[in-house]
């Protein structure tokens, strides 16, 4: 078991430009089963002489049975690609694209409420399940290993940092999931925690949050009420000044709840194991699990 992606994942890739094609190769190398690609004007040809191109998502699904989609199209066109994939009833849509306008995300998020598709992202590194060698996204395959720790994070490279610390202490991962750095996104901390709680192979969860918004507080409420598995939490941005955007669109402190200190308190009160320094995530997992 794992969450969201596994050996049954049949991936469709939309947007096969410079980044998309580079990452598609990395995913194939790792072991992901990419079955089709959608790119305007390329129908009839094949990516790397292997993966058939289609002009639309619905055609690609009909021909190849894809059940999961990944999007690399540029931000101005991301909304349309996400809606097309939702309308085609894919189970999971992962949007890597950074810089999707927030008004577009409002529309997408409201549209999703009436649909069965799960969206991950945008502005996220995607998801990886080491045991089945399934990677839908850009998390480097060589840093993960199979195991029982679930990882969920708003950040990309800080997730890699956490994974490498887990490796240092001998812990592999059930699934690593990056929910993305935007203020409105498809999958929240709570959604991911729910899946990890239900997943038999996940023993504990590492949650990496950052300043801005109140999604970590929502996670805290969920942890308090529903999580029986230990959660080890770290919040980045303790030294960030108020009112300044720290790279991610969502990483800006505009009120009390956005502060790292407020998030730490909520998580602590909810029974999560808060580790203040990002350098000690692995150490803390060891401490909690032994």
């Amino acid at each position: 078991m794992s969450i969201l992606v596994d050996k049954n994942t049949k991936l469709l890739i939309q947007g096969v430009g410079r980044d998309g094609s580079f990452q598609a190769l990395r995913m194939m190398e790792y072991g992901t089963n990419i079955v089709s690609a959608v790119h305007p004007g390329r129908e009839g040809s094949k990516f790397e002489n292997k993966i058939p191109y289609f002009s639309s998502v619905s055609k690609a699904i009909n021909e190849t049975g894809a059940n999961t989609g990944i999007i690399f199209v540029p931000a101005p066109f991301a909304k349309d690609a996400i809606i097309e994939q939702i309308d085609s009833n894919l189970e999971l849509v992962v949007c890597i694209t950074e810089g999707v306008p927030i008004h577009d995300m409002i529309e997408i998020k409201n549209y999703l409420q009436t649909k069965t598709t799960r969206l991950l992202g945008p502005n996220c590194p995607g998801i990886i399940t080491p045991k089945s060698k399934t990677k839908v996204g850009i998390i480097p395959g060589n840093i993960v290993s199979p195991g029982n720790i679930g990882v969920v994070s708003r950040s990309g490279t800080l997730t890699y940092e956490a994974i490498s610390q887990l490796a240092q202490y001998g812990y592999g991962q059930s699934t690593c999931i990056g929910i993305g750095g935007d203020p409105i996104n498809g999958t929240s901390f709570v959604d991911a925690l729910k899946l990890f709680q239900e997943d038999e192979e996940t023993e504990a969860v590492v949650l990496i949050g950052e300043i801005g918004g109140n999604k970590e507080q929502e996670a805290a409420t969920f942890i308090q009420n529903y999580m029986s598995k230990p959660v080890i939490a770290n919040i980045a941005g303790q030294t960030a000044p108020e009112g300044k955007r720290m790279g991610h669109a969502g990483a800006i402190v505009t009120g009390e709840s956005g502060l790292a200190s407020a998030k730490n308190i909520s998580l602590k009160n909810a029974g999560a194991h808060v580790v203040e320094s990002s350098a000690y995530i692995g150490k803390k997992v060891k401490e909690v699990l032994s």
Partner: protein
Amino acid sequence: MNLHEYQSKELFSHYNIPIPVGFLATTIEQVKNYVDKLNNNAVIKAQIHSGGRGKAGGVKLVSSIDESESFTKSILGKFLITPQTGSKGIKVNKLLVEEATSIDREIYFSIVIDNNDYAPMIICSTEGGMDIEEVSRTMPEKIIKTVCSPILGVSNYKIRKICEELNIPKSLIPNFTEIVNSLYKLFIEKDCILVEINPLVITKEQKVIALDAKINIDDDALFRQKSLKDIEDKSQLEKLEIEANRNDLSYVKLEGGRVGCMVNGAGLAMATMDITKWAGAQPANFLDIGGSATVEKIESAFKIIVSDKDVEVILVNLFAGIARSDVVANGIINAAKETESKIPLVISMRGTNSEEGLKLLNNSNLDITTATDLENAANILKQKLSQGDI
């Protein structure tokens, strides 16, 4: 992206939202001329990207030409310091000269994005003219929040309710309703993150007027808001932030720090800043070089860091996924040579091509201490601090 008050008011007037008669001035002569035009009864307002201008002395009611002249001399071209600007303040290049308004009541009115309901939300209060954060702390019952629908917009019954709670006089309700609808339209059409009027006033003549205006546009939507992108006032940004912008780097200058940080990824960059503090020093900046950084981009990132006079040591933390460590190493080496920088470096480099990267750095004659990971980097920094090296 922030708009100035005068730019926000120009947008308001396109949307038929009433504003005071006003003129934009950049010289003393213009100010005097406009004050004269307004019958020596005017308000002069410094146009900077910051709240709290009034308390900081950036807004002045004047009743004579002489008064306007001495105020303008004291502020135009000078740096105005508010609680939001930092200790250096922001330079005042433009002044808005407006007719003075006789105020009966002050209302707070804003539209924001509610990230929990995925919809625009109207926030208003009878306590206008005050710092709204302060109102929500001390009188939370005075804050009225109304979540709108992305599909239906703002329904009439919601506006009626707002009018009731704000105690809007019956005769002004049609007028007020029109303003709310126009503001909502502007908010959606211009990809706003914030539209704020504080205060929205009812004048003694029983007119509703937007006395102040603050608009913040989604940076990610500027590709389809070209006319707004064109009017961005870059002079309001930190010099180094402008340089970073030009090179597509995400950089924020932090006051009082002496450890320059260069990192890939926003989350890791924040974590690196935190580690710096844990080691006993303050970070001088946030800097995310992004995913697929080129040698040129790294060079400009390095130059931005070393041109910050506060920086005494540079902490590089790279966890390369898409980025390549050898490219980053070459960028650093080139830029260090070009700038003849003597600033010591602490470098942690992991991920794609990190062995090549570290080899390049170790062979480079630069003052480099390599760290194996985040914890090690923090310890090296701590040691350097305790030895008084930095």
